[in-house]
């Protein structure tokens, strides 16, 4: 299966007055898995449908290995697609579903059957080929849909929220399976999701979209640690916004602590909002009758998350800050107790409010 490079160039698509895509630019290297992530209505599914050939852009181009495929119909694009709602043909067995594309390509029946069996094995449901879709669970149906998309040896695999209709446990299992299969086959893959955890865990790079535009496309770790915009910082992972002041060209003061700042930053003296991850915030227990301090607040909730516990503290000015602490320390911060904020690492972003 030859891996191909995919390029979305200045894609625009409007539905009446609504601008679904507004000059989207994105490039996928051969064999790469890129997750398109964004809130509902950001245009990610529209982008995927344009790549698949189900919709035409108002402007812009889709290129596959440098060749412009924008005018081609979906049938001529050599792309495999997995839909959110499985979309298996209900009157065909799992094996017949998988072999459907090969049947259209006039592949001989024995070769079709062998390929279907091979792919059902690959996606982990060998032996289920004779079953009809209504005899399969949601997870099994989506595996068949994946096998069906791969059977035609597509140049690009398109996945449109393939896990969102599944329950949590199956979702995790199938997510790993999809990644394993994608790596085994080395197929270029565009994965649309609104679930950030899913995107960060499966993709080589995550492309965050907002209002039809690309906000940032980067490796998951970079996206998490060095978001390019406040939107990306807020959308990916949990983020605290705390007030601070620039005290030097590369130093911000927040809750009485001075932290180094990278990247673009306002001039010294500017009042700013400092974006901090919960794991970058520490807490100190303080006596109930401690002197007034803007860095001190009241513990509201403690959410046990396994190895860590997330403590929510409300500061005097009403700002809520979340701090991730080792769970064995959670008992130091009972509800309604007092705690002081101790920013422990550099902020991910400093913005002017």
């Amino acid at each position, binding site marked *: 299966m030859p891996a191909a490079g995919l390029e979305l160039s200045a894609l625009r698509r409007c539905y009446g007055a609504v601008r679904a895509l507004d000059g989207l630019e994105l490039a996928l290297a051969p064999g790469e898995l890129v997750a398109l992530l964004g809130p509902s209505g950001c245009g990610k599914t529209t982008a995927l449908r344009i790549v698949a050939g*189900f919709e035409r852009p108002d402007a812009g181009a889709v290129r596959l290995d440098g060749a412009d495929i924008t005018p081609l119909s979906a049938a001529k694009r050599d792309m495999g697609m997995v839909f959110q709602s499985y979309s298996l043909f209900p*009157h065909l067995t799992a094996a017949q579903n998988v072999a459907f594309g090969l049947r259209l390509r006039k592949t001989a029946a024995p070769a079709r059957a062998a390929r279907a069996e091979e792919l059902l094995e690959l996606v982990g449901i060998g032996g289920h080929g004779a079953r009809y879709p209504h005899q399969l669970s949601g997870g099994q149906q989506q595996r068949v849909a994946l096998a069906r998309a791969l059977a035609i040896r597509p140049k690009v695999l398109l996945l449109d929220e393939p896990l969102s209709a599944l329950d949590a446990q199956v979702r995790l299992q199938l997510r790993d399976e999809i990644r394993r299969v994608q790596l085994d086959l080395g197929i270029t893959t565009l994965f649309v999701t609104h679930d950030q955890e899913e995107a960060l865990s499966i993709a080589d790079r995550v492309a965050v979209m907002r209002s039809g535009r690309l906000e940032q496309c980067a490796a998951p770790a970079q996206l998490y640690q060095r978001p390019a915009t406040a939107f990306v910082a807020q959308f990916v992972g949990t983020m605290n916004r705390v007030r601070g002041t620039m005290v030097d060209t590369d130093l911000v003061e927040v809750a009485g602590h001075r932290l180094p700042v990278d990247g673009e930053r306002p001039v010294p003296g500017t009042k700013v909002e400092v974006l901090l991850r919960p794991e970058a915030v520490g807490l100190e227990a303080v006596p109930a009758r401690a002197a007034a301090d803007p860095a001190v607040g009241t513990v509201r909730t403690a959410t046990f998350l396994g190895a860590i516990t997330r403590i929510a503290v409300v500061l005097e000015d009403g700002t809520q800050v979340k701090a991730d602490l080792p769970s064995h320390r959670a008992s130091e911060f009972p509800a309604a107790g007092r705690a002081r904020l101790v920013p422990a690492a550099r902020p991910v972003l400093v913005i002017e409010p």
Partner: protein
Amino acid sequence: MAVTTDPPLAGAVDPAPTRRGLRRPRALGAWAAVAPLLVYCALFLGLPTWALLYEAVRRTDPATGVTSFTARNIAESWSGFYLTAMWGSLRLSLLTALICAVVGLMTAHTIAQSRGRMLRQAVLTASGVLANFGGIPLAFCFIAAAGTAGEATGLIRRIDPGFALDTFTGLVLVYPYFLIPLMVLTTMPALEGLRPQWREAAAGLGGSAWDYWRHVGGPILLPTLLGGFVLCFGSSFAAYATAQALAGGTVPLITLRIASVLSGNVLAGQENLGMAMSLDTIFICALMMAVYLPLRARSARWLDS
């Protein structure tokens, strides 16, 4: 690793009877709820069918007045004059069902594809009304619109000079008026159940629109189409009042023959023969339902999955 299971405790109470005990009132409640329907079916479907069957196999000798059980009525209902009527009904029903299946499907497909919700609602409401608009009122409407010397009749006679409403062709023209709406009502849910993603999946796998209809849409719709055809056939086969009002005795149809025999229009004392013919029609309708119901169940399973 050895796996052991605890032996049942001595004297432990088997929970099954308790569960069964709990289920019993629920089952009784379910039967109580369905009882009125069962009584209704028994009184208005079971009892008349039984009476029909009983009378169809009885015959009274006019000379001696002795009544005996015999299959002669049924044998006679499949011969001569009556066989011609049965054949006429079958021909009319097959032809009208075929026309209505095609036209009804096309109509339903157009409506299902249209984005106008108002149009869809209007067509479905009209279909609901028109599917039940038969009998004398329908015959009267057609006589008024395409009677012996109307403009519409004149237009039709340019194609078929021998056209008249009281002929086989006339009935073929009239029956679709209530059968097409029936087909629309039958096929619309199935057409709306065709998921757009199936078409897109087929296209993504390299299929054209023709491939989609040939390998996906067509096979999925086929049970519904056959079911609709069977319903139209049955409805056409059982129609009486429209044919009676339009054609009287000029077109040989089984329902008209049954009425004629039961009312003693030709010969008196042939009621049992009429019952035998009625039994024949019940048999044919039951056959149709036996084909329709599994098809419908199959289609529903596909479209609901």
